[in-house]
């Protein structure tokens, strides 16, 4: 049924319809409303046969989920940002053990500097952990991806992370079609583990593996990911047939067929990009968009196919590897560079730490990619004046102080001047 609902609440409702048997809850902004919502549903009795466990940390959240998943229970948790880093060791373990846990990541920046707002730094920090990573464009997709994620996780016995832009989606209220229990049950059968800790049939899970077998175990992990692409597409097709809307899959193509310039992006920014693309196409610009839904495993062949005709590919990263640039751009570059006539890759870093990505900025960026392409990462809307002043300060004094505090001081001075001007105008 269509409802006007906050993204987090919609996700909680749909996760509950997936009948998780263990939920490990620990609060961290901006994910908290999801586990709070699930807690309400368990308390009200809407979600039955579920252990809702208030754990003492993120490390405990995922450790408990590992235990319950190994014991054969459908297990769920959610986190964000520093919370994901705090559970990092368990994140790798869940993947290495092949346990089908589903975790929502309310995407948020990682400190320092401390920042509670949205970007993809957390997901990117653990992109090599072996989890599948799916990125939601809307709250409808955020809700839907959880149904797909449980099915995918359990078919392959892999953990799946559903990445949802913090605040921009988690705290936004929009219409979401909440499916019925029957619809979800028909799509998602009860969990049948490929490995389970069962006293009646004892095994051990988590062997120490030496140099003689480590590569092989790792290769099997790689093999499972590299052979998952068809399944991910099939599950999206089946979802669309059962639920009557498109969610999930490897990627979505928006006008790439004839496009000279193709943009590649993940998450909620895709909506804004589509609005800009509609305007630019109306002005005659040859531009399209690839919305990457599945980031891990990285759909190299699907990208090669959809981008084969593009002359320019502009990759928008919502995170920064300070020693390299945009991680998504690097991945796209690697996927495309052996094409017979590979497109030029342009990298843009946008929306770090919650900075809004506006239509006006994207408009400028896309025009620039066609008319005046750049080398290296382009920092969208970088305040060059502030950066310049701080670089100048560093050049002048050895003890120039902490960067974050210095930048805030410069901005504070500017704001105070604007405030004074407003007061004087008002009087």
């Amino acid at each position, binding site marked *: 049924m269509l409802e006007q609902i906050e993204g987090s609440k919609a996700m909680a409702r749909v996760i509950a319809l997936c009948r998780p048997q263990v939920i490990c809850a620990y609060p961290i902004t901006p994910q908290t409303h999801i586990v709070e919502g699930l807690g309400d549903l368990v308390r009200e009795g809407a979600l039955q046969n579920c252990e809702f466990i208030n754990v003492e940390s993120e490390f405990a959240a995922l450790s408990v989920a590992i235990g319950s998943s190994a014991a054969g229970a459908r297990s769920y948790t959610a986190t964000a940002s520093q919370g994901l880093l705090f559970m990092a060791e368990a994140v790798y373990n869940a993947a290495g053990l092949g346990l089908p846990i589903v975790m929502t990541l309310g995407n948020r920046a990682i400190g320092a500097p401390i920042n509670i707002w949205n970007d993809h730094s957390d997901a990117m920090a653990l992109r090599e952990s072996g989890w599948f990573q799916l990125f939601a464009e809307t709250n409808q997709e955020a809700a839907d991806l959880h149904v797909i994620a449980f099915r995918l996780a359990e078919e392959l016995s892999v953990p799946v992370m559903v990445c949802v832009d913090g605040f921009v989606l988690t*705290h936004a209220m929009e219409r979401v079609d909440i499916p019925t229990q029957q619809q979800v049950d028909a799509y998602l059968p009860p969990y049948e583990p490929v490995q389970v800790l069962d006293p009646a049939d004892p095994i051990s899970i988590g062997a120490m593996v030496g140099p003689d077998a480590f590569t092989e175990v790792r290769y099997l992990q790689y093999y499972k990911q590299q052979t998952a692409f068809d399944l991910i597409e099939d599950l999206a097709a089946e979802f669309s047939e059962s639920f009557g809307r498109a969610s999930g899959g490897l990627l979505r193509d928006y006008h790439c067929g004839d496009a000279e310039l193709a943009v590649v992006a993940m998450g909620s920014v895709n909506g804004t990009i589509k609005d800009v693309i509609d305007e630019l196409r109306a002005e005659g610009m040859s531009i399209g968009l690839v919305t990457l839904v599945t980031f891990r495993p990285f759909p190299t062949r699907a990208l090669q196919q959809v981008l084969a005709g593009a002359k320019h590919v502009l990759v928008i990263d919502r995170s920064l590897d300070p020693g390299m640039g945009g991680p998504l751009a690097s991945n796209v570059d690697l996927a495309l560079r052996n094409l017979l006539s590979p497109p030029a890759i342009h990298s843009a870093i946008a929306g770090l730490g919650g900075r809004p990505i506006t239509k006006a900025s994207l408009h400028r960026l896309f025009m620039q990619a066609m008319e005046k392409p750049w080398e290296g990462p382009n920092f969208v809307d970088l305040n060059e004046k502030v950066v310049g002043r701080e670089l100048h300060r560093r050049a002048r004094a050895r003890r120039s102080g902490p960067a974050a505090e210095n930048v805030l001081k410069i901005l504070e001075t500017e704001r105070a001047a604007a*405030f004074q001007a407003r007061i004087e105008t*008002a009087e």
Partner: protein
Amino acid sequence: MIQVRIHGRGGQGVVTAAEMLSVAAFLEGRHAQAFPSFGSERTGAPVVAFCRIGDREIRLREPVQNPDILIVQDATLFKALDVLEGLSKDGFLLVNTARGFSDIHLDAVVARIPAGHAQAVPATELALAHISRPAPNTALLGAFTALTDIVTLDSVIAAIHRTFPGKLGEANERAARAAHDLVSSHIAAGKDTADA
């Protein structure tokens, strides 16, 4: 697509106002999106929330930069920040104040938008009278339905009851109706405040 920006302070129900407005539009079968400005919300700190209403799926996720309607829940904000930034020249302005626009130095702003597009409403006083709490959000939404025809008063009242069940909902409904009627009477009399 209609874009609304609501300014207020933490504790005044700014985010809830945007959400209720989106529910009202949803109940009329329209697409609507409401979201906060994502600050660390503290009582008294400036808060901004946004609402977009349209007849097609709303894909745009940027904050509302050029509002068609600006609702200001706390008139002291005009000095603290550039509340009016981006207000479209055909825009509407709804301010919670018991004073006139000239008393709060907004004459020039009111003159920039079409006649009849600005209204000053004593929403805090109405809220105190009807809800016994200084929460001006529902009164302003009631006033909003008198100033514009984007959503009906009935839809806003239905949204209020979804947010505040029981007696609290009824009290908020009274505040919304009172503000709606007050603004309707201002408009009928060609005024923009209670005193002018």
